């Protein structure tokens, strides 16, 4: 593959601290790739390496098929010669230049076409009336859009975004996110974006690379990442989950929803079953028939919290469905149901788990 960005077997250390341990990623042209992971997992360092702001210590970096960084030979093409755009988390707008000058900063020759592009971009991003303003008078969202235009203005082949929406308040974030995504899709540029917000990654990305502790733990489409997580860590990125631990017997693990088949783990090995909070359905009463026989149990509501778009329920269930509910043998399920649901405390309910939202992993 000759287009986009390819980073191969990257290792990087700051002093004695190893932040990247043999990381390989690809960001294809015309696609949006997300680096998803908690703070300190090395994703921003990876971005800075791609931009040439950090020198490659070990591994190779290709841009559009051209080798731009090689740890072995010490090759490190200067950032200004790479043809990449980088948008910083703090936007890094130049305070002494106005909006127009900021955007035009990276354009080599300001032809009528490029001027028209800037004008259209300002209009499109809703900051046209601020073209002569200085950055400090703009709101966070406006600064974000100016920074995006500035990074795109020199027509880079690859655009790197470092936590592009983290500086915005939650109410503005969704809208800015959508505007940005549409704009990027129109530009057709290869995008590598860093985020710690799984919802953002799900919304924006064509391809998600999950990182943890300087390593890639999973790479795939958003659907693959959400429905086929390779580890408990990846599964839990999308929110806290219900954990059931035990020892595998006859290829199964006992859970409150009944025995869950785990063919991949040998008998006698410790294992865990994780169930998403939103993967559990609740209906009032004890005699409802669930769509699946295997994953059903009955319990009592302990607490209910209204969260607005959804409701959070604590439900007391027996450790295994065959046992009755008693004090020393119960477990609290955390359940997230859409909309408003506010049963009385102590009300009897039937709960069943969506098998697609249940995952089993070895317990190490």
């Amino acid at each position, binding site marked *: 593959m000759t287009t986009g960005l390819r980073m191969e077997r990257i290792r990087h250390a700051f002093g004695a601290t190893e932040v990247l341990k043999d990381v390989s990623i690809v960001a294809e042209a015309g696609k949006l790739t997300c680096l998803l992971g908690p703070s300190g997992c090395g994703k921003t360092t990876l971005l800075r390496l791609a931009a040439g702001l950090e020198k490659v210590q070990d591994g190779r970096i290709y841009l559009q098929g051209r080798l731009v960084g090689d740890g072995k030979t010490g090759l490190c093409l200067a*950032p*200004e010669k790479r043809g990449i*755009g*980088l948008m*910083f988390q703090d936007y*890094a707008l130049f305070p*002494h230049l106005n909006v127009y000058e900021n955007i035009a900063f990276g354009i080599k020759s300001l032809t009528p076409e490029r001027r028209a592009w800037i004008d259209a971009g300002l209009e499109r991003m809703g900051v046209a009336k601020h073209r002569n303003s200085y950055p400090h008078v703009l709101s966070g969202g406006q600064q974000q859009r100016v920074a995006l235009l500035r990074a795109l203005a020199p027509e880079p082949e690859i655009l790197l975004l470092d936590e592009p929406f983290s500086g915005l308040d939650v109410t503005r974030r969704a809208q800015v996110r959508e505007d940005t995504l549409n704009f990027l899709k129109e530009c057709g540029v290869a995008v590598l974006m860093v985020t710690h917000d799984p919802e953002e990654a799900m919304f924006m990305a064509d391809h998600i690379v999950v990182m943890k502790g300087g390593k890639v733990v999973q790479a795939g489409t958003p659907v693959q990442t959400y429905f086929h997580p390779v580890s408990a860590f990846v599964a839990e990125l999308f929110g806290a989950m219900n954990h059931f631990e035990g020892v595998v017997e006859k290829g199964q693990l006992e859970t409150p929803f009944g025995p869950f088949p785990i063919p991949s783990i040998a008998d006698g090995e410790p294992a865990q079953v994780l169930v998403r909070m939103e993967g559990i359905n609740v209906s009032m009463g004890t005699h409802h028939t669930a769509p699946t026989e295997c994953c059903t149990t009955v319990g009592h509501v302990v607490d209910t919290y209204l969260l607005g778009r959804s409701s959070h329920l604590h439900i007391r269930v027996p450790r295994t469905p065959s046992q009755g509910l008693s004090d020393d043998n119960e477990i609290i399920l955390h359940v997230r149901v859409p909309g408003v649901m506010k049963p009385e405390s102590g009300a009897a309910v039937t709960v069943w788990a969506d098998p697609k939202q249940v995952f089993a992993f070895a317990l190490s």
Partner: protein
Amino acid sequence: MMETLNDFGTVDFFAVATFTAGIFDVWLNMNSPSGAAQLACMMMMFVIVLIALERYGRRKQKFHNATTHNRALPGFKLSAPLATLAFLACAVPVALGFGVPAWVLGSYALNFYEETLAADFWTFTFNSLLLAGLAATITIVLGVFLAYSLRLGQVRWINGVTRFAALGYAVPGAVLAIGILMYLGWLDNTIDGWARGHIGISTGLIFSGTVIAVTFGYVVRFLSLSFGSVESGLAKITANMDGAARTLGAGPMSTLKRIHLPMLKGSIMTAALLVFVDCMKELPMTVVLRPFNFETLATFVHQYASDELLPEAALAALAIVAAGIIPVVLLSITIAHARAGHTQHADTAPQHIPTPIQEVSP
């Protein structure tokens, strides 16, 4: 402490036998440059120990501002009698230290300005301005160069070199002057010897006792002022600014020109001002390194004061003070205007221009 070690004019006038005065005494009155150099070396050792102790004392300190904006300190309202006392406590040092001397000098100047002018006052002023201007320009260029190299951080040895170059301010002027004098003498002799041997021409003394020598001395001594000011100015510009400019296609020099210099305007003006003012009043190095019959305002005042002709030198003394104060006032007005206004110029002004007083941190 360093400032006192450096001082020559005051102790000489009041005939206090300090180390600095001793160096001059040995050299000028006993006619023993090597003896003076020995004394200078001892003083240098003392200074080095002092610096080492200071570095050691705050080796673990780091200064970080938790927020980007400094919060205004809460006001504290004093009752009327306390307020009067506070006002007096603040006013007395200013009045005794500046007001009274300025008034005395002012009245002297009014009565004796003709004598001062007759003593070639304008030439001295020109000399002072020339030296101070030259030194300020060179130290700024060097200071920006050093601070920016340090920021780019690509050459490892530059760190040590820069720290060493910025040590000059800690070295007392008398010690520096003697060091430079001996070094330039050696350089001149070497060049002269080489020229005689190879071309058959005697070049004589090229650097010793020239304006170049004095300027060199000023630059060595005051480089740390400009470097420190530029460095702290640069430190306020986040590394992401460099990153943004570089990824937008600007090379390191272009980034310096288009990003750092415009944003550093305030720091650079402050640095230039500091060096300029310090050079205007510099005495020990000027006395030692200047060419024959070359007087600056400072050497002129010192000369006349030593000869009990203080009133005749009052105008020159005031001129030095004015050279220090007028630029500060002008700068403060510029800054105040930039902050208060809401014009586009206000927007272009850097967020924070340090006042010279804040910046003195040798």
